[in-house]
């Protein structure tokens, strides 16, 4: 099983899109390519589970290691564990859904699909990297497509939002870069596996951990670096919003997790700051959402709150909480993509995203309204959907931490769910229920492509919600390995 296929397949798709003629050809190539990615990810899952069942307990499977820059000891080292695989599955699902909802994009469609596919390539490369240099490379590859997607095809104050997003993400990666250099000059390698084995001196960890962690934190919308999220998401075209919230914010969460695992001592001593920032993000995000009147802003601010749970889970540094963080990443990815897809469908018909101007949509477009409600219920953590499983796991993990202040943070974060319920129910009530305005009465319901996209995402949400043991089964061995490594180091102190 060669993981490089995950990079080559999008690359091939992108090149074919450039060669294609006309919207019809472009979108068929895009859809075929993304379905192939989904198939590849599914096949990867199958062979991963088969390997595991056969008793292969190596930390990373399908490893391959090639020298890239010999003089600098930079390796092209790839391999996946359960967590990376979960992220790859998430990415492939969202890519298909994103291509499907962009079906009628006729403005510069070639460039649009090209950039979407390029963005997904960056995400795959990021998740399979076991070398910090390649990791960083792919992290930055994804920035430019985001800038162009928002700036060219966006709505509202798009150029400003695009600029803000690009600059903040670039600043984040500059911080990451400083952190990585620090690691490199004290271990003489970028290889994650090697660094984990040989460890990093504690003083070095303490100095460089904040850079790397906060750098990834910018991508994960960690407070106070979350300000790119609302504007960026609100201005982006539908598919780009889905990619942004569903995939690219996960790059940040995943990076934070890897950094915490690489520098366990520093993670331990800075845990209180991480938890403090995460709690602020959760509460602030929830309350800010209450004040929003634009559907996209509602979802963007609630994303800040939800991603706060990811960071909270990582900051608590125990097995359950980290498991929860990973499930939350997948769950939030699916849910928020669904939400943005539903908002996009509503907007393309009503041409407004203002809650106050909508109403009674259930009568005109029952399918889209149902999708919207499902996304909302998942977002507020109703049992049966993925959001419940994820947040519950994070809370359980956090509560395991006996420290009083940590428990206080947990309670506060838990309380934010009530706030979430308020804004979700209010928005749903206004937009979906009630009387419908006359101009919206004749609008049509979802087309086949939109239905397919929604069904795909809802299936993912339900699988996690109803059978959480499946994803647990996939990621637990990997979190076990991370905790074992951390435990070894922390106990020996």
């Amino acid at each position: 099983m060669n993981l490089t296929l995950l990079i080559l397949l999008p690359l091939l798709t992108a090149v074919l899109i450039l060669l294609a003629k006309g919207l019809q050809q472009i979108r068929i190539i895009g859809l075929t390519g993304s379905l192939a990615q989904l198939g590849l990810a599914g096949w990867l899952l199958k062979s991963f589970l088969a390997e595991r069942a056969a008793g292969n307990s190596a930390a990373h499977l399908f490893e391959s290691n090639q020298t890239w820059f010999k003089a600098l000891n930079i390796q092209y080292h790839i391999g996946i564990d359960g967590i990376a695989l979960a992220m790859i599955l998430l990415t492939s699902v969202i890519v298909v859904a994103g291509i499907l909802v962009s079906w009628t994009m006729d403005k510069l469609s070639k460039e649009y699909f090209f950039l979407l596919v390029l963005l997904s390539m960056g995400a795959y490369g990021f998740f399979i990297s076991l070398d910090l240099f390649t990791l960083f490379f792919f992290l930055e590859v994804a920035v430019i497509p985001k800038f162009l997607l928002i700036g060219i095809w966006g709505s509202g104050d798009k150029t400003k939002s695009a600029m803000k997003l690009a600059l903040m993400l670039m600043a984040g990666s500059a911080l990451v870069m400083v952190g990585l250099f620090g690691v490199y000059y004290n271990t003489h390698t970028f290889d994650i596996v090697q660094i984990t084995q040989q460890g990093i001196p504690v003083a070095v960890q303490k100095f460089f951990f904040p850079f790397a962690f906060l750098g990834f934190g910018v991508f994960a919308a960690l407070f106070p670096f979350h300000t790119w999220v609302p504007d960026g998401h609100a201005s982006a075209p539908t598919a780009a919003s889905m990619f942004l919230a569903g995939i690219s914010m996960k790059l940040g969460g995943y990076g934070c997790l890897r950094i915490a695992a690489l520098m366990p001592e520093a993670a331990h001593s800075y845990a209180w700051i991480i938890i403090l920032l995460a709690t602020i993000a959760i509460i602030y995000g929830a309350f800010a959402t209450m004040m929003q009147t634009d559907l996209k802003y509602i979802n963007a601010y609630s994303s800040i709150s939800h991603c706060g749970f990811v960071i909270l889970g990582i900051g608590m540094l125990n097995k359950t909480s980290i498991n929860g963080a990973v499930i939350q990443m997948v769950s939030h990815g699916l849910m928020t993509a669904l939400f943005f897809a539903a908002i996009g469908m509503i907007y393309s018909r009503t041409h407004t995203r203002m809650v106050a101007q909508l109403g009674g949509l259930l009568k005109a477009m029952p399918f889209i309204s149902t999708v919207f409600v499902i996304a909302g219920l998942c977002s507020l953590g109703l049992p049966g959907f993925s959001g419940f499983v994820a947040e519950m796991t994070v809370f359980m993990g956090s509560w395991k931490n006996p420290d009083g202040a940590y428990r206080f943070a947990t309670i506060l974060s838990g309380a934010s769910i009530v706030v979430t319920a308020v804004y979700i129910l209010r928005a749903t009530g206004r937009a979906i229920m009630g009387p419908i305005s006359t101009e919206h009465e004749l609008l049509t319901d979802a087309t086949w492509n939109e239905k397919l996209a929604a069904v795909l995402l809802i299936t993912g949400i339900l699988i996690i919600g109803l059978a959480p043991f499946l994803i647990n089964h996939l990621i637990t061995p990997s979190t076990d390995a991370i905790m074992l490594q951390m435990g070894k180091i922390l106990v020996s102190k």
Partner: protein
Amino acid sequence: MTYNILISLRQELVLTVLIFLLLFIKLGKDRSNESILNFINIALALNLAAGFCCHETAELFNGMFNTNPLIVFEKDLLNLAALIISMQSYAWLKDNKNVIEFYLLTLTSLLGMFLMISSGNLLMFYLGLEMSTIPLAAAANFDLTKRKSSEAAMKLILSSAFSSAILLLGISYLYGTTGTLTFSILTAHINGSPLQLFAFILLIAGFAFKISAVPFHLWTADVYEGSPVAVTSFLSVISKAAVLFTLLNILYKVFTPIANTWYLILVLLAAATILIGNLFAIRQDNFKRFLAFSSIAQVGFILIGISGSSQIGSASLIYFILIYIFSNLAAFGVIAVVSALTGKENISDFKGFYKTNPMLSWVLTIALFSLAGVPPTAGFFGKLFLMMAGAAKGNYGIIIFAALNMVISFYYYLRVVKAIFMDQNDTPIEKLQVPTVSKIAMYICVAGVIVTGLASVVYDYIYSISIGL
């Protein structure tokens, strides 16, 4: 023996022959500009090819002239840049009746740079430097009808005369304290006495003028703006690269005993250069001024790379210059075409450029991303390696500073991309007919920008021939 000398001097000899040939062509009967340009481009390509055979190490004329694989490679880079610039100027020179003079001036300057890079003696170095600067000042005045062009030439000649004077003063002090000007003997006599340090600072100041490091950068923007695009690209890429190569050589080979002193000087120069270059670039609307300040900032990154005084540092410098040649010339190539065909040179003129000229827009965008250091372009690798080299001495402060400055630089490069792709414009630049030769040059640059980074062989080769402290 004689045969060996010819081999070692082959790059210089080809250029000299070409210069004389051009003189004879000028004297002879009139020929069409197209045929002259094609002839020159082919000759330059041959000269470039000549560099790739025989990588020998030799010392000629009592150590006045040195050559080794690294020096040959550096000259190859300059040849490559000269060829690309020549191809890109096709549209501009096609109808210019003084086309031969342009090449006489620029090729003489190139020859001077070759001698400077190969020099093993401060006098030889000085001769090469002057030989490379003075023709360029004449070339800057090439737009005879424009006042700005002659202003640029005046500023260039005055500031280089000034910097040469400083340089000479430094050289004479150095001679006074050591009694020699030969590099190989000089090293043993460097002991860091106050007068020597003073001489060294004068020397560095002279260099800083030529590479337009802050605070010796004031001439840059005006000269870049006033000169014809071809001369501007020549100044910003070739002449800078040549001086940087020489600086690297002198620092790493001659002034090794006072490495700790120049380390500090370089770090301070680098910090000032990056910051000032970046801050001024934000405010520019003229594309050439914009690239002038952006290239000042790039030099700052290069200085960080050198300051690490490791083999990675010197390899990364040469690697970065190669990338810089591709990316900067791709940007200048687009501007050269636009400027030659429409006369427009402002960033605001490029609003809505994508609608009418998608191909040129992508070339410019890729070039700018490479200058900004965004993957997958080669600029990402170049900048990262320079900073890795700078971090080798454990000076993380300058790395953090440089990383933050990368974000600033990202802003102004994105501003141009925004203008091209996103801004509305009722009267965008119309669809341009790009000459095939210029197109080929652009494609070479874009291919270079993409391949040089991802293909690690390039870096590994440069590393294998480069020097460390």
